[in-house]
């Protein structure tokens, strides 16, 4: 057997302190070493039980325990079901033996205990946590398409009840701070420092020599809120799965249902059978495709991006002290806020002082709300707002080490505002443009230092959207790219790095999604079916609703620009089945947008009131007989194919950028693991998975719905 990662230290009182310390990794995970070590440790505890008075479980790492072995899990296929099941059964049987040792066992939680880490702690009889920075507790498995299979569902359900456990801990995967974890009952005791942990644990053991019994192992224990045989629960139970369906909008997200099912089914049997039921659902999720997709995106890809995979090496990290935000519209106002929040002084400049002040008012409103909800303090809030200086005077930008331009989407205008300030800001200031569509290389020609010019594309609303798309123009230097990357990380957002092209990556790809949906309307598909197909495919907003918000006139303009650009370059314009519908809506029906109070939907006092009553007649809705599954896949495929073209044209550099950019920036469904993972993880109706299955299906769609679905050569 390999070496034991769980150090054993027995004191004079007979209390054994088990310190988890995986020699091969910076964090403890549920890998082979752990399984062997925990097995050997419980063997020894049982063998030496008579001389053991209690057990303390703690960690020598910065975190308590990091959780499951994702590297291993992501490889498991349906053929590995037996092995996955046995392994998870082994892990939980070891923890169950610890729980039923008959001696008080205390978890001394010195750092983050997420997933498997919290599950280990839940298998002890008393949880003490040190309230130190970085400590989080929770069961975030669901956010990776998994369930807490180390006894998490079973113990949380027994501890908190089916409804409460599911709603507050299991279904959302929330990570809790210490105080909230204590309030929920996830931990029993809080100490102020790591040093106090083991002494407190030992003190509890001495005070509770008979404390080695879990509440659910006490005869007569009842699950709070009862089981389905309790009429009160029975009355509301049918609403759990339906509300879940409502919440996930019918998207392909098997994990929350598996958690609910394991909780409810497990509540009706004894602990060990509940635990086995949990393992079965866990196995189905681990061996399924969705968890692989989500682990790829939300663990591996995100880790690669945050680690700076797309940042050029060899440049020191830049810290910005003063940013000039040009244009105080919605985007400029949001950018000013996030920069000020990160401690950067902001000059928020607009043509009129009143406009600039209105831009600052946006931050004031956010802060007022945060204050009223207790999310910030008066002092912090005042300091943040004091950093934002609204102005109409170009001179105020003097000395700024960063410029972010967020004026109207016009190359001439953008050139003009840069010329106004470029000699006033610091001589090496990074020059960023928040354009969402205009090529950066062209914009850069308006400044003297083209190598310092870069696209920094934020998403709306800026304070909520986690992504920033950095666009490198032809002349942008590595140094400028590194700086932009540092900025995005400084404001706690996730950067992706793409190369210049019309619409870059995100705007270009989301455009295909919206166009596809609009094309369906033109084909005679029921508008409600289009909206449902979008939602059930997993998009956060239905496409026609989204179109109204983006405004059809803007789409019409972008289409025309794209069309003209292609024709000017001597090319053949692509298929454009959405064009006729958009033109009809804008020119004939004069229903361009939500902003104008009339689009695909009707609006009453600015609020969406339902689909426009003339819509079905206008587009002969109901005349097309297209399988619902095709509607969903057309939206997903057209974006995936456009993404592949972005790779082919050198717009995208890494699959991680494609995946994270698509999920965080343009609402590509999370269950897919992102728009590239959708291709390589595509699961066909016959169960085959992978790029070949994607290509085969794309060819079918091309035959049925148009050549825009023809898979690019690079996929073959």
């Amino acid at each position, binding site marked *: 057997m390999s070496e034991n990662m769980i150090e054993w230290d027995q004191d004079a009182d007979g209390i054994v302190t088990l310190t988890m310390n995986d020699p091969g990794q910076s964090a403890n995970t549920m890998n082979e070493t752990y399984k062997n070590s925990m097995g050997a440790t419980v063997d020894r505890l049982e063998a030496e039980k008579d001389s053991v008075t209690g057990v303390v479980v703690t960690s020598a790492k910065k975190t308590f325990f990091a959780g499951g072995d994702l590297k291993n899990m992501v490889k498991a296929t349906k053929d590995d079901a037996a092995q996955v099941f046995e392994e998870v059964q082994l892990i939980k049987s070891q923890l169950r033996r610890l729980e039923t040792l008959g001696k008080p066992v205390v978890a001394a939680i010195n750092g983050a205990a997420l997933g498997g880490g919290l599950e280990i702690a839940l298998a002890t009889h008393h949880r003490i946590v040190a309230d130190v920075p970085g400590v989080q507790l929770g069961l975030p498995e669901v956010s990776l398409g998994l369930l807490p299979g180390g006894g998490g569902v079973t113990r949380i359900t027994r501890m908190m009840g089916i409804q409460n456990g599911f709603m507050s801990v299991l279904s959302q995967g929330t990570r809790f701070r210490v105080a909230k974890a204590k309030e929920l009952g996830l931990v029993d005791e809080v100490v102020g420092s790591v040093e106090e942990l083991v002494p407190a644990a030992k003190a509890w053991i001495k005070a509770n020599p008979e404390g080695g019994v879990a509440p659910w192992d006490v005869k007569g224990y009842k699950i709070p809120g009862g089981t*389905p*045989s309790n009429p009160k629960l*029975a*009355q509301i*139970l*049918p*609403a*759990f*799965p*339906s*509300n*879940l*369906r*409502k*919440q996930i*909008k*019918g998207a392909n997200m098997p994990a929350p*249902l598996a958690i*609910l*099912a394991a909780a*409810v*089914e497990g509540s009706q049997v004894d602990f060990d059978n509940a635990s086995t039921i949990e393992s079965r659902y866990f196995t189905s999720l681990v061996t399924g495709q969705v968890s692989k997709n989500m682990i790829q995106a939300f663990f591996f890809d995100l880790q690669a991006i945050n680690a700076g995979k797309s940042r050029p090496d060899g440049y020191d990290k830049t810290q910005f002290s003063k940013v000039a935000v040009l244009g105080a519209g919605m985007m400029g106002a949001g950018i000013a806020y996030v920069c000020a929040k990160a401690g950067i002084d902001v000059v928020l400049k607009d043509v009129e002082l009143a406009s600039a002040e209105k831009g600052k008012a946006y931050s004031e409103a956010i802060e007022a709300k945060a204050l009223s909800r207790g999310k910030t303090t008066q002092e912090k809030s005042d300091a943040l707002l004091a950093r934002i200086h609204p102005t109409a005077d170009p001179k105020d930008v003097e000395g700024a080490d960063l410029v972010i331009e967020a004026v109207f989407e016009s190359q001439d205008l953008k050139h003009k505002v840069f010329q106004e300030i470029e000699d006033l800001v610091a001589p090496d200031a990074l020059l960023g443009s928040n354009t969402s569509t205009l090529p950066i290389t062209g914009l850069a020609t308006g400044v003297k230092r083209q190598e310092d010019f870069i696209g920094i594309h934020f998403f709306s609303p800026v304070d909520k959207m986690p992504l920033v798309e950095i666009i490198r123009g032809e002349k942008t230097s590595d140094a400028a790219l590194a700086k932009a990357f540092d900025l995005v990380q400084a404001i706690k957002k996730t950067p992706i790095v793409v190369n210049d092209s019309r619409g870059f990556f995100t705007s270009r790809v989301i455009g295909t999604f919206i166009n596809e949906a609009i094309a369906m309307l033109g084909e005679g598909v*029921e*508008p*409600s*079916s289009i909206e*449902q*197909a979008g939602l*059930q495919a997993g998009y956060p907003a239905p496409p026609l609703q989204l179109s109204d918000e983006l405004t059809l006139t803007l789409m019409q303009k972008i289409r025309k620009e794209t069309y003209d650009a292609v024709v000017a370059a001597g090319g053949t314009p692509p298929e454009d089945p959405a064009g006729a519908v958009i033109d009809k809506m804008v020119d004939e029906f004069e229903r361009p947008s939500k902003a104008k109070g009339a689009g695909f939907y009707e609006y009453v006092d600015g609020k969406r009131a*339902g*689909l426009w009553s003339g819509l079905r007649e206008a587009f002969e809705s*109901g005349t097309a007989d297209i399988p*619902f599954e095709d509607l969903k896949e057309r939206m997903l495929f057209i974006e995936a194919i456009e993404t592949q073209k972005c790779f082919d044209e050198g717009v995208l550099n890494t699959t991680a950028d494609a995946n994270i950019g698509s999920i965080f920036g343009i609402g590509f469904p999370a269950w897919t693991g992102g728009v590239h993972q959708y291709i390589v993880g595509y699961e066909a109706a016959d169960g085959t998975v992978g790029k070949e299955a994607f290509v085969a299906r794309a060819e079918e769609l091309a035959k049925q719905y148009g050549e825009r679905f023809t898979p690019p050569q690079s996929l073959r």
Partner: protein
Amino acid sequence: MTTEAYIYEAIRTPRGKGKGGALHSVKPISLVTGLIDELRRRFPDMDEDRISDLILGVVSPVGDQGADIARTAVLAAKMPDTVGGFQLNRFCASGLEAVNLAAQKVRSGWDELVIAGGVESMSRVPMGSDGGAWAMDPQTAYDTYFVPQGIGADLIATIEGFTRDDVDAYAVQSQDRAAAAWSGGYFAKSVVPVTDQNGLVILDQDEHMRPGTTTESLGKLKPAFEGVAAMGGFDDVALQKYHWVEKIHHVHTGGNSSGIVDGAALVVVGSEDAGKSMGMTPRARVVATATSGADTTIMLTGPTPASKKVLAAAGLTVDDIDLFELNEAFASVVLRYQKDLKIPGEKLNVNGGAIAMGHPLGATGAMITGTVLDELERRNGRYALITLCIGGGMGVATIIERV
């Protein structure tokens, strides 16, 4: 050579209205034994040793109605030990399923006399008391798009464009027809008063009716399923399946849906020989029976495929049928069925139905068999088709011929 299955008698209790109603004080088993006593009075020469089974539909077969209430009723009524008792559950069509099964047993030649029917004391054993995986097992409920049936009724109305006025108008018709039938004495033959152990009458008429109901008075009622739909997210579930529908209009209320009541019914089914030798005169022949189904989420459209199937089995068409009796679970169910099969209004539910008189789940199918048979005789008609919409999307239908 098949043995024909004949209906010799069909009787029922009046229907008591819920907890405040007269039958709440009566045990479900007593509702059944009271009717068995009545059969003994009507057929003094009935040889109980030749009865093979008492088949009872019960939809919530727990508590007072649990543990095979049919065999328990046989014992309680002191029928011979050789008479079996069999409780079945086909949700809302249980009572008709019991009649069909009895007919099949007789027609196979393996049984000669079977008593079929059903009982439901909804005031004592509320709907849903028996749990079940369909609604209670999250995985099953999720995968099958389970929604409460009122949502399905509202979805039918939405899809078919039935307005609140349409469904209320139908409800008024049900009340008017039921009132006319009662005052005309059309139910006199089949309704058997419920009495206590002293022979004192507890209830002798349907309690749930509201004669004089108007569309104005109904229009004031609040939609019954809007609240549960919002609380449970059920509209969203239904719309995910019926994705072409933008929004469900909640038009059903307590006033245009079937009433929650207590009651029981029995139907005597036997061979020609059995009847002859016991001095019983056949009233109708069971021509054909059918079971079918439709989508489970909209849930209540099963009567159409079941009726088509039973018509085909009988070699008959809609025009051949003199009377249609479709349980009035919800007004939209009847309107949709009428539209599907193009049934003239004067042939359908001519003496009102469950909207006026109530729907004691397990008993209704047997009850309306008697109601339509009485009317067939009154009109000297020939064929009647009986059907009910059923939980889970099923439909059961039966055609009888007056003899």
